[in-house]
């Protein structure tokens, strides 16, 4: 939506973390488009369903292509787009419910394939659009509209999950810091392989964690966010695991494996082994 559209009546709540993610994604796409001298229409944003998915309609300025699909399936849709046209820059935007719950089955295959796309996950620890149900990243014991006596499951640790599944680029960001976040997303897009930028993007209506994330010195609240130190070796998987044991929420690039070829390049290597035949030749094999 490049201009104000009176028919489109969806709005994020005031203060929603997704505003910052949108800004960061816009910056990342513009910067990358400029650096690579490619037009904005070389970008495809594949969105899931939920508050986060509406991001694709709310982007301002030059418009990328978009798909606002069905719940949980943004990754395999992106698989089709990317493998159909490997020169496109494909970005997935999804929420924690969309990406980790209903869509959770698609993370492992893309990690194994090293699909060359960047997924930006907006984690607010709650289902916002359906009004406040618990999600995989809701804290254990939390009271939500769907857990009136407290959430029975433990909170999923997405960063640990990605690392275990073999995602080749993993970063953690915060919607309250759009500029550094834009830089992380841009690095994710530049990464040749499957990258996930997992963003803390609080829901101001149902699960407002801004203060816990940022901390409040005056009231003695320590921030849960902490910057990954510059000396962290992002190519060291064990170091990344160790970092995650320190508690809180590290911000920055957690892991970056540049040694693996992405799926589209692996496919190219099969062309030499295969000998493509014309349709005439294929039919000819059945002649008698």
């Amino acid at each position, binding site marked *: 939506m490049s201009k104000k559209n009176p028919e489109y009546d969806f709005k994020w709540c005031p203060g929603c973390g997704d505003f910052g993610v949108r800004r960061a994604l816009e910056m990342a796409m513009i910067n990358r488009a400029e650096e690579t001298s490619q037009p904005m229409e070389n970008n495809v944003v594949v969105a899931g369903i939920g508050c986060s998915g509406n991001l694709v309609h709310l982007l301002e300025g030059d418009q990328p292509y978009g798909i606002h699909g069905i719940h949980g399936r943004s990754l395999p849709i992106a698989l089709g787009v990317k493998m159909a046209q490997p020169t496109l820059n494909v970005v997935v935007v999804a929420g924690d419910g969309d990406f980790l719950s209903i869509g959770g089955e698609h993370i492992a295959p893309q990690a194994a394939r090293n699909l060359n796309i960047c997924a930006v996950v907006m984690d607010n620890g709650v289902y916002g659009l359906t009004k406040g149900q618990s999600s995989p990243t809701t804290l254990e014991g939390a009271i939500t509209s769907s857990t009136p006596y407290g959430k029975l499951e433990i909170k999923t640790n997405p960063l640990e999950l990605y690392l275990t599944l073999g995602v080749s680029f993993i970063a953690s960001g915060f919607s309250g810091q759009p500029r550094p976040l834009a830089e992380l997303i841009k690095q994710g897009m530049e990464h040749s392989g499957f990258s996930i930028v997992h963003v803390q993007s609080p829901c101001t209506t149902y699960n407002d964690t801004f203060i816990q994330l940022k901390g409040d010195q005056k009231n003695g609240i320590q921030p849960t966010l902490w910057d990954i130190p510059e000396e962290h070796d992002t190519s060291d998987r064990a170091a990344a695991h160790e970092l995650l044991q320190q508690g809180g929420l590290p911000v920055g690039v957690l892991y970056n494996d540049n040694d693996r070829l992405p799926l589209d390049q692996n496919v190219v290597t099969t062309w030499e082994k295969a000998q493509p*035949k014309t349709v005439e030749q294929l039919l000819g094999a059945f002649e008698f």
Partner: protein
Amino acid sequence: MQMRDFVVRFAGEGGQGVVTSAEGLAQSSTQVGYHALTFATFPSQILGGPTWTQARIAVDPVLAPGDDVNVLVAFNQDAYDAHHQDVLPDGVVIFNSTEFEIEGDDRSFGLPFEELAKSTGNNRAANMVIMGALAHLINMPQEHLISFVEERFNRGRAEDAEIIRSNIEALNLGRNHIAESSFSLGELAPPETPKYQQLMIKGNEAVSIGSMAAGLEFYAGYPISPATPILLYMERNLVGKDRLAYQVSSEIESITAILGAGYAGKRSMTATSGPGVSLMSEGLGLAWIAEIPLVVVNVQRGGPATGLPTKTEQSDLFGCMYPAHGDVKLPIIAAGTVEECFYGAVKAIEWAEKYQGPVILMTEMSLAERAQNIPKPDLSKIQEAKRVVYSGSNGYLRYAGNGLSPMPIPGNPGAYVANGSEHDDMGDTTHLGERHVQMTERRFGKIKLLEEDDYESDQIENSIAVMSWGGSKGPAREAYDKLKESGLPVGWYYTMFLNPLPPKLLEELKQKDLVIVPELNYQGQFSSILRSLGVKAESITQYTGLPFKARTLVEKITEMTNARLKETVKV
């Protein structure tokens, strides 16, 4: 009188060469100039398990597996026990006498085919021993078979001569062995060799190549019986630059991946069976509302859930035509023959690109695994399917208007959001009632673009007609031809285009007092759809996991026709 066709059934354990024997017989018969088709059922296990395949050899083209068995080749006792009652009273049972003995059945002839093959020095020539014996039974000249062997095994290798010698010896051994007995079936009329170039091909292979002839570029799939051979064929052959066939992690990934590829400008397809179509439900709805071209091939099997994975049924018509929630009715092409598997796939790709949406191509187990001789398609008459593509500047309104609009392709100007929510001109989500009305009518209106003119018809002056669909076409046509000969006043209609039906066909059907629909499901799905369109249709149903016998249809069509004619007279 000379025979015009005969059926041989091979029955044994999986892995004993049952399938290769039947296919080998069919293949050699077509090379001699006959028409042939096979029919197979498999156990749902890798090794062992009772399995059987039959081959029907005929002077004229045939489209059905055949009602009766002239010759049963029983590889073991269980196979004999399970199948001997299907053998005609004047038929022959050839059994593997190295393995077991049959007593008290004067149709049976023991042939130690494995031993005889071994004696030629070629253990793999057991098929040829059997074939030699069959040739004697139908009085087929031995030189036909010998020239077949010489042609087939002449592959330019050093060992060719020895392989040819041992196979011919096996043919002779089989023939001489049974010639010492008094068994004979008569004489098969000499072949009327078609003058055109032919292929011997299975339904799944025909679907695969047909889709490529129409310019398929992207295939994603997940293994499932009986559609897996399409995935395997694609992975071997849809390769190279700008082509990809890829195994994904579920049918949900299949449908969404081909949707992404279709959106990105590629002609895209997946093939699956009933359980896969169930999983694709939501993705098909997305392709419909977001107007993205793609093709789903449903190689039907039997029953709900896991059902009957290796049997044949036509019970997914409702599920394919109405696969998704919220006012969706998909274009359907249903192949009725192996040849139609090829042309149906060509049409399916063409339709998807033409109306920019999902198309279902339905086939079924009995066609997928059927090897049949068909005329070689003339590729010069087939064009790559074309999509109306947008080539203007940015600021385009993708979904403006009430009909088809050019589709922008990512990487080019015209960026828009392909939206699975109800949307406005530019693809943004909207909840306005008038928009939902406009877009719903736009989506249904595009179906008109797919209306075809051609369909089969015969004796249309009759007020009662037979109109089968899909793989039941074969037995239905065979029954119809017999009824026509006997003078029963029924007409014939057939099309592989089930939605939209050719408009002229629908008009004709509506004029009939009764349209009889043979179909393999409990609910009478196609007749139910026809009735909803104003056709007085009634089904003949069967749900055994096997195709119709022509004889059953002759009886039932006669019964229904006479009952209706009597009613009309009373009035």
